[in-house]
């Protein structure tokens, strides 16, 4: 019986072949732009003018050192803004979601609705007035112009996820601690947060991807080159580097590396979080 099953398993059907072939074709086409990117990042402008489809030798590594000097400040800005706002959003979402899931208090439903309604407001509607609010508060061209709105808008989805999670936790866990006389906030920090581990990973990864990739908002509120994040930096580099595309491509690759490394190190939780974020 088992033998028959194994034999059957080894037999490759026509369907399986078609399936794999199609997947390979999909993957090849998906990766074409990245192939173009890598190939041309090793070219001088003259090599590039000679053709962009294949490697040409010798490989011109200097593009990478040129691009590194140019891109490093932008990468650093993106990393700091993303790390700080992701940490902030995760903390706020935990705090707020915990409050909504754990406590019974007056006005709870109204307040929760006031937060949740933000999920339904398209960001395009608030783009113009939010910009004017930033101007009005004197935050234009500062990192707070990025951080504060990220903290506000980024936590909404997280609050929703955390609340759902907290509501399913058994209350008894917290009651024991409260009888021992621990303060509410301590209770949240030392019992709540550890229990929220998995959901907070999801919240932070989704937030991180959003902030890292954001283009529109930084474009509106950051003009100073020293504060620019990666997307803006790439645009600036693109405008300056018309005569040497190779270095530009090297810059694109360097700009992609931080998140790729993060992804490689946290693949499982990344995949799970993306799936969860996609279906919620």
């Amino acid at each position, binding site marked *: 019986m088992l033998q028959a099953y194994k034999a059957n398993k080894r037999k490759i059907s026509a369907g399986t072949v078609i399936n794999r072939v199609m997947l390979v074709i999909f993957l090849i086409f998906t990766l074409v732009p990245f192939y173009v990117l890598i190939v041309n990042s090793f070219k001088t402008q003259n090599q590039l003018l000679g053709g962009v489809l294949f490697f040409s030798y010798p490989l011109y590594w200097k593009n990478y050192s040129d691009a590194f000097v140019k891109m490093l400040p932008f990468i650093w800005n993106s990393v700091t803004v993303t790390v700080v706002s992701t940490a902030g959003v995760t903390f706020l979402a935990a705090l707020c979601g915990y409050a909504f899931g754990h406590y019974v208090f007056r006005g709870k439903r109204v307040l929760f609705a006031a937060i949740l309604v933000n999920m339904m407001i398209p960001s395009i509607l608030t783009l113009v*007035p939010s910009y004017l609010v930033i101007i009005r508060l004197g935050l234009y061209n500062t990192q707070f112009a990025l951080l504060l709105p990220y903290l506000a808008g980024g936590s909404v989805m997280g609050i929703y996820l955390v609340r759902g999670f907290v509501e399913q936790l058994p209350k008894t866990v917290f009651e024991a601690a409260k009888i021992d006389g621990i303060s509410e906030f301590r209770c949240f920090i030392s019992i709540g947060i550890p229990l929220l581990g998995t959901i907070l990973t999801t919240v932070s990864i989704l937030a991180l991807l959003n902030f890292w990739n954001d283009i529109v908002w930084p474009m509106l509120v950051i003009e100073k080159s020293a504060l620019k994040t990666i997307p803006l930096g790439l645009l600036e580099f693109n405008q300056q580097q018309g005569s040497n595309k190779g270095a530009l491509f090297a810059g694109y690759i360097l700009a992609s590396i931080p998140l790729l490394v993060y*992804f490689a190190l946290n693949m499982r939780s990344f*995949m799970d979080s993306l799936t969860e974020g996609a279906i919620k």
Partner: protein
Amino acid sequence: MNLKLKKKLKGDKIAPYLMIAPTLILLAIFALYPVVLSMVKSFFRWSGGFGGNGINQFVGFGNYLQLFKDPVFWQSWGNSLFFMVTGVVVNLIFPFLCGFMIFSVKNPKASYRWRVAFVVPMVVPSMVIFLLWQFIYDVDIGVINNIIRIFGGSGVDLLGSASSVKWAIRFMGFPWVGGTFLLVYIAGLGNIDNSVREAARIDGASRLRQLLFIDIPLLKPQFKMVFTLSVIGEIQDFVKIQTITGGGPGYYSYVPGLYMYKTAFDSGEYGLASAMGVLMMLVMLGFTYLSNFLFKTEAAD
């Protein structure tokens, strides 16, 4: 003692409010207030100043009327409609096909590896993707023109000509499979009870028939979600177009979001731009209702 304990268990009365306050204050300033402002100011001619600075004049539906009479505004919506329709078609078909094939890979390890392979491109900054495609289309040294020249053709300016620019923009990201929609479909396929498929298989239904009569009908909620998110995404996504064509040539790739952006930040007509934002929101709401109607599910979900 007993009373004190009860009070303790109920929790400090103000604790939840303190926990919510920071988020709520931030949201009020950077999200809720801008929404109200946007709606109110869509009825004003407004140069963006607060507290009586600059122009701030009530015009009733003036901004809206002006937009309805504006041919560029209509053209931008026409273009947007093109992107919505083609975007919905593409997203309903390609990621689904790919997701179905990954789901059909029986070995869980192999299936996981395929999923990772298609998710990796998501991790690359979207600006890199935009600029790469701009290069692929480049008239002088782009990839497509390199290939055309190898076969003896002459260069074509796909982004610069009115007849091809919209298709060229749509073609960006081909074959459109790497991304969240793929994960939505795979998750949906995983939720379908295997006994349904098993029963069909015993009845002698081929894999294709199973796909047509079991998987596709049962994935209705996923298709609905992809439909809605595609439309909302296409209406709002103007950065891609701003980056690679700036709306040109002429207004052939102009979209409402880009028009709004330019009206506000190039022309300084913030009231008019607010009216555009409000109209875009209304269209999005309309499409959300339409999707409820198109993908009616018997059971509430």
